């Protein structure tokens, strides 16, 4: 067997989550963006959202102004040289600007000064892995997990590192030359310090370095339905304890085990918040805005349920995701379409359906979910844009129309 492994290239990887559970990736910080967009949607909220310096730095980083971000970070650190959050951000900037050695130094120092933080360990591992030092990457990730066993990004990174190490060991066992095939697995960098609560709802917030934040935005009430931003809302993984890269963590991560708890826009958090930080300014208005974004979460859960039924070849659940008013494309009858779907789904040795860039728009009783669908089955690997139109009937949402593109 030739020693050719189908490693995707880095470019692909950076655009595509590798695992069925999409994970927080390098290039986005959904909560920040969602927040940003929500804010943009209602300019009035802006002043109240005056960002902390951390946010400012993070925002600069997001927009690619790394030099500026660095200047700000360094200025801040002049005053507060020990601030872990800013030191961490600085390390990420160094990483982004290719200053690996400095980033290693920064993160290493953080692991010594604040060994309870998993994030610096994680990012150290990312750098080590990029240097082919997978043993060191493994050690760092294991430290991250010792620190916080439910830290999903580190867990998944560690899974990748184990897979790579195993692959290397097998190649050595078989004396295959692996040098010419070794494309790095690209591990997920954590962008900001944020520690998820150890167990959903059990304790209050364990926000570590970021509890410095501004009070939860009062304007929550003002950003009601608009959560609409077809923003990268649903990027975050379903599992609750996921370290949604919620940057400065305006609100504690919603400890609710509800899927999509973390990712949704801030108003939700305020609303849903069992508010460990208890800064919720106006509990009263909360319920109102809650309704709309809750729908977002609902839609996401329906869409993910649909994808997972598909991937697990659970035809009953898969077909049940479609409403009675679903119209198959191409003029097929419902029955013919069902047969067709069954034939295409059942019997594949394995299917994976990953959703990326899921954007949800709720409009009363209807909703639209647009996303990039990465479908893999047996030898197929097809990525395409997809739009699902959903309709609420009673408490349930069903797919009314499925179309490619959009």
């Amino acid at each position: 067997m030739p020693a050719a492994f189908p490693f995707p290239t880095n470019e692909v990887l950076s655009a595509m989550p590798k695992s069925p559970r999409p994970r927080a990736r390098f290039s986005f910080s959904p909560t920040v963006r969602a927040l940003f967009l929500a804010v943009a949607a209602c300019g009035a909220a802006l002043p109240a959202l005056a960002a902390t310096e951390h946010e400012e730095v993070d925002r600069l980083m997001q927009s690619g102004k790394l030099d500026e971000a660095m200047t700000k970070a360094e200025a801040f650190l002049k005053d507060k040289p020990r601030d872990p959050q800013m030191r961490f951000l600085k390390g990420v900037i160094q990483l982004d600007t290719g200053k690996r050695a400095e980033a290693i130094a920064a993160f290493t120092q953080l692991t010594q000064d604040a060994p309870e933080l998993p994030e610096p360990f994680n990012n150290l591992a990312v750098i080590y892995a990029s240097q082919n030092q997978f043993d060191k990457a493994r050690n760092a990730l294991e430290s991250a997990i010792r620190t916080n066993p439910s830290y999903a990004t580190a867990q998944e990174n560690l899974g990748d590192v184990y897979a790579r190490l195993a692959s290397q060991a097998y190649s050595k066992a078989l004396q295959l030359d692996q040098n010419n095939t070794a494309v790095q697995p690209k591990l997920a960098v954590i962008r900001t310090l944020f520690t998820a609560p150890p167990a959903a709802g059990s304790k209050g917030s364990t926000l570590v370095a970021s509890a410095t934040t501004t009070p939860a935005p009062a304007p929550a009430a003002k950003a009601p339905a608009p959560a609409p931003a077809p923003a990268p809302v649903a990027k975050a993984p379903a599992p609750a304890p996921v370290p949604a890269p919620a940057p400065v963590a305006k609100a504690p991560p919603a400890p609710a085990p509800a899927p999509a708890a973390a990712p949704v826009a801030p108003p939700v958090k305020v609303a849903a918040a069992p508010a460990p930080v208890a800064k919720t300014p106006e509990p009263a208005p909360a319920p109102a805005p809650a309704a709309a974004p809750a729908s977002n979460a609902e839609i996401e859960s329906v869409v993910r349920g649909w994808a997972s039924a598909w991937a697990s070849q659970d035809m009953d659940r898969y077909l049940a995701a479609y409403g009675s008013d679903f119209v198959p494309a191409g003029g097929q009858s419902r029955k013919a379409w069902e047969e067709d779907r069954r034939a295409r789904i059942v019997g594949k040795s394995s299917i994976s359906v990953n959703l990326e860039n899921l954007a949800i728009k709720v409009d009363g009783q209807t909703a639209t979910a647009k996303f990039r669908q990465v479908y893999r089955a047996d030898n197929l690997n097809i990525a395409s844009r997809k739009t699902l139109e959903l309709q609420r009937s009673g408490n349930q949402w069903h797919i009314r129309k499925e179309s490619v593109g959009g």
Partner: protein
Amino acid sequence: MADIVRHGRLQTLPFPLRSGKLLAALTAASALLLATPGAALAANNSNSSSSKSANAKTSGTKAAKAGGSRASAKEARGAKASSGANKTQLQAKGKRSAVAADNPGATRPARKTARTAAPLQEASGAEARLIGVYELFGRGKTREALAKAQTLVRDHPNFQLAQLVYGDLLAAQVPPSNAMPDTAGIARLRGNPAMVELHEESRRRLQALRERPPAGTVPSQFLTLSTRSRFAIAVDASRSRLYLFENSDKGLKLVADYYISVGKSGTDKAVEGDARTPLGVYYITSSLDPRSLKDFYGAGALPINYPNPYDVRRGKTGSGIWLHGTPPQQFARAPLASDGCVVMANPDLKQLLRKVQIGATPVVTARSLQWISQPQAEKETKKFADSITAWKDARASGNEAQLKKFYLPDFQRASRKPVDADGVLRDELTYAQGKRVQIKDMSYLHWRDTEDTMVATFGEVFEGEKNGRTRRQYWLRQGGEWKLFHEEILG
């Protein structure tokens, strides 16, 4: 009639592995499954993905044919020691000659019977550490097993089986949900045909360590061994194992045993280039300086006297059968890998090199060793010794007709000018007629296959003299009588 006692079966020691929940959780660890009796089967029931490893367990001889990367190393002879076997041996490479039934698969996995003996024979060096990994895994200590495996491959990166085990332990840590390209790669690597060889190596190493020779027994070939041979070697091809014995006036004592590889096509070498390891009773004839050898032979080489006179008598051909080491890139080679040589890991070979005596260390290579007790060996010795005594007495009596009965018509004495039966009769009578001769330093090595043979080495001392001849005689039993067909005068 002297029948070799066949009931000297290997003892099975309990191997302290616990199969159970853990294994169900770690069916991914394919080489490790082999370490645990019955585990592969159990896992197979619960998880079809492990069927490969289960298959590997039962496809011992197929492993030889898998022709993976390990078999690809050229068995080219070192230039200096070349004996012209090159071409034919290389030509024979692609041939799929039937694999000798080395591995009847008759040995059952460890039975949990009397927990009397030590848990597991202590093995040396890298193998011991590998076994330590297996044991930790078997006790559910996967983290410790992983750590030990990691240091083992760090120290021996070219130990392929250790890499496999390390890979298995790592792969077991990958969450099932991981969809990394590496995960797909892992599945493909596991499906590589060469994996079968590594699994077979694993199985044989464990089997050899689990099933130990009963205390106080010796391979049935070693009836008597003069203390002039301070060491003796016996190779059990079915177990891929070389047993090293120390010899003293108290008899033979097993002091070490090592994993070895034999010919790609198995054993029972018959013709040059058949890529088989000869079966028989041999002696180490020299020790080749590793600096004069290609890297391929590793730490050194110990040629044996294949074809011996019995082989020649039966028309066997070929040459250049050595015990040698491994190339730098391989700590060990597959169970069936060489062109007929016996291949050992370099650290193991180095131990052996310090002990062997040129011309005096016997090497028995057997398909499967039979182990007999010392009293049985003595009984067998006595039966044969009577023939030697009768031969000696006939010679002393000067009765040519009587003496002639001990020689087959095609007898030959090896010397610069080979001497035939008639010549030898005259020589012996001149040499020893009427003298009292004492025989000393006897070594009787018994070899039976389709025929019954004995390789007798001894010294003669005439009364009143200090020295006499040292002989090595090859005897064949015909019609119940032992007869000489070959003789070498060693000094």
